[in-house]
């Protein structure tokens, strides 16, 4: 059935058609796609008024003529909550195009097994705004996801957001001017490596949230990333969890277990270069009894942090608190110190498999914030967080 694209291109002289016809033609092509098809999107800019969608297909490759060459724009969108939406599919490859300015998310993929995003620019043009959509690249409830060499710009939530998924690579991507650059949420077995996350509110977030069908994320490796100057104002609409991320956040681990953050360049993030926190810090109520609000088995090692002053933001309660406690010299690695009682051995020590391990890092200063004691008696002592044999990472 390889003849399908050829037939379509013969029968549908695209250039003669007005934009609404072009939109319809692209949509029809996706509806009629057959197993094994390679759909080629030509160079040019196409305006969409509605979500473009693909559902229930197998082994489909969608290929543009290149980033900045094939451009799908949703500036005039009146229907649908996404730009491109892929659902209930297997082995889908999306590559080499630019997609921009949707009213909701740019590319949402749900229930897809085997998915590649490659060389895609997904962006909101203009100044970052709370009126931009939530997520640029948004796989949710997917398995075997590769996001590589993509660029995400301007999301009012997260540029690259992987939610409730399993077996995920995010590599060689750039995230800029989003609230969260890269966010891994309630996702298991994620590798985030060789990316650049810069000028976002927060660079890389590893979150586990309550009330979701996929209960537990974890087993996340974050390495070789450049997490630089994520000091942008937080422009997320309130109510969203990322709205609570202070400007100046480098890497943040929220209530996730088994996360290793190593060999990253985490530079010039002014408020919290690396934060390890429990869900209690959000001050949101927790009704989900299956939810574990504590981070555990976290390891932060061999990262490079910047020297020099770090004047935290005043535009967040936490930032202001840090300023009160540390002035213009906030420690790089901040742990809220709220301990899960279930993770303690009889002698009161943390179970070895649940420990928070910090170091060695370059310039990695540390504080246990003692948030459970109203931030009183903050400890800078790293000794309790030194774990043996951290040099051998669990990278496979």
């Amino acid at each position, binding site marked *: 059935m390889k003849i399908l694209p050829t037939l379509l291109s013969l029968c549908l002289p695209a250039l003669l*058609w007005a934009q609404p016809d072009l939109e319809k033609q692209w949509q029809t092509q996706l509806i*009629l796609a057959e197993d094994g098809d390679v759909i080629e999107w030509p160079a040019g800019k196409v305006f969409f008024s509605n979500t473009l969608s693909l559902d229930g297909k197998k082994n489909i490759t969608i290929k543009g003529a290149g980033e900045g060459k094939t451009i799908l724009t949703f500036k005039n969108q009146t229907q649908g909550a996404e730009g491109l939406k892929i659902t209930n599919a297997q082995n889908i490859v999306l590559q080499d195009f630019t997609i921009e300015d949707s009213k909701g998310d740019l590319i949402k993929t749900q229930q897809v097994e085997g998915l590649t995003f490659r060389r895609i620019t997904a962006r909101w043009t203009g100044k970052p705004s*709370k009126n931009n959509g939530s997520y640029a690249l948004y796989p949710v409830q997917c398995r075997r996801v590769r996001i590589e060499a993509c660029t995400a710009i301007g999301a009012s939530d997260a540029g690259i957001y992987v939610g409730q998924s399993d077996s995920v690579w995010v590599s060689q991507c750039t995230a800029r001017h989003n609230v969260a650059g890269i966010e891994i949420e309630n996702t298991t077995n994620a590798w985030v490596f060789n990316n650049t996350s810069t000028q976002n509110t927060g660079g890389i977030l590893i979150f586990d949230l309550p009330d979701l069908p996929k209960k537990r994320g974890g087993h996340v490796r974050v390495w070789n990333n450049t997490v630089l100057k994520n000091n942008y104002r937080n422009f997320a609409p*309130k109510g*969203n969890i990322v709205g609570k991320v202070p400007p100046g956040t480098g890497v943040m681990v929220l209530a996730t277990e088994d996360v290793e953050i190593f060999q990253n360049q985490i530079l010039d993030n002014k408020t919290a270069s690396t934060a390890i926190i429990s869900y209690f810090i959000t001050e949101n109520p927790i009704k989900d009894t299956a939810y574990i609000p504590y981070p555990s088995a976290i390891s932060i090692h061999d990262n490079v942090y910047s020297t020099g002053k770090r004047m935290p933001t005043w535009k967040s309660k936490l930032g202001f608190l840090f300023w009160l406690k540390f002035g213009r010299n906030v420690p790089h690695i901040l742990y809220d110190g709220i301990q899960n009682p279930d993770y303690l051995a009889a002698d009161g020590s943390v179970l070895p498999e649940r420990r928070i391990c910090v170091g060695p890092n370059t310039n990695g200063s540390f504080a246990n914030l003692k948030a459970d004691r109203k931030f009183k008696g903050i400890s800078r002592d790293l000794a309790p967080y030194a774990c043996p044999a951290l040099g051998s990472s669990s990278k496979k």
Partner: protein
Amino acid sequence: MYRLVYLVFLLTLLSAASELEAPKTKLSDYGFFTGPMAQLQPAERVFPYEVNAPLFSDYAEKKRFLSLPAGASMGYRDSAAFDLPAGAVIIKNFIYTIDARHPEKGRRIVETRLLLRDAKGWKALEYIWNDEQTDATLDVAGASFPLNWVDEQGKKQQIQYVAPNLNQCKGCHSYDGQFVPIGVSARQLNRVEDGENQLVRWQRLGYLELPAAFDPALAPRLTDYRSELATAGAERSARAYLDANCGHCHNPHGPASTSGMFLDIYEQRPERLGVNKTPVAAGRGSGNRKFGLVPGKPEESILVYRMEHDDPGIRMPELGRQLEHREGVDLIKAWIRNMKTD
């Protein structure tokens, strides 16, 4: 001319691509209706049905029919959609009265949606009516055209009518990724029409197999939120409204399972209904509000915000609605306002 070639071409592909019998180009080709098409007079083994709690679709009036093949009947199910035999078709017509104050000016049938059952499962097809109202033509990629009418207050309403494309049909009609019907369920169909309970009538006519000792009074039934608010109360009316308008996606097996907010009639956990629940991926759909549903405070509930809004990145439901359903919003607000705040 291109369009005709294109259509014929599409039809060929569509039929080749599926195991289904080739979709018919014209709605009239199915023979669902006898006499002038616009009168929607059902043919033999095509029968009308009415639901308790309709889905709001921009104030469209809907005329619904079921078509069953000869000798076949539907199997009853308590909570899921009925088990329909291969060859069954669910027919839903979308209609606008041209001027609600002057019914004599007539009506316009805009669109007919078919759900067809074959041996493998369900499939959706879309037919768009012509201006002459003599027939409707297949459209797979979703048509869009301006539509005007005058409402009961004499106010002129105008929308860009958008028929969903086939993928968008599945955006709602989905259970664990499989295409399923929604409205053909006991709780929607268990109602009296023309002096007799629909389910009982269909059993009598051989269209439906009911379990032994079936009693409509004991079977699931959604409150008709349009007519029973005063007798049934806001709670039951609102839950019926949410089940019909949101629950097909917002349930543990639907496309909105990602949100953790479940609005189907079976959900009993307050936090799943959104009570003091923070949004997951609402983005600007949160409207700067903190929780899905704040008891006593509709104006602080994201649920209400999204029902009131018409921006495609904010509004709920995502599809099939451009106008605010004022009566629906009022109902949900009343329900939330009267919720115990403890």
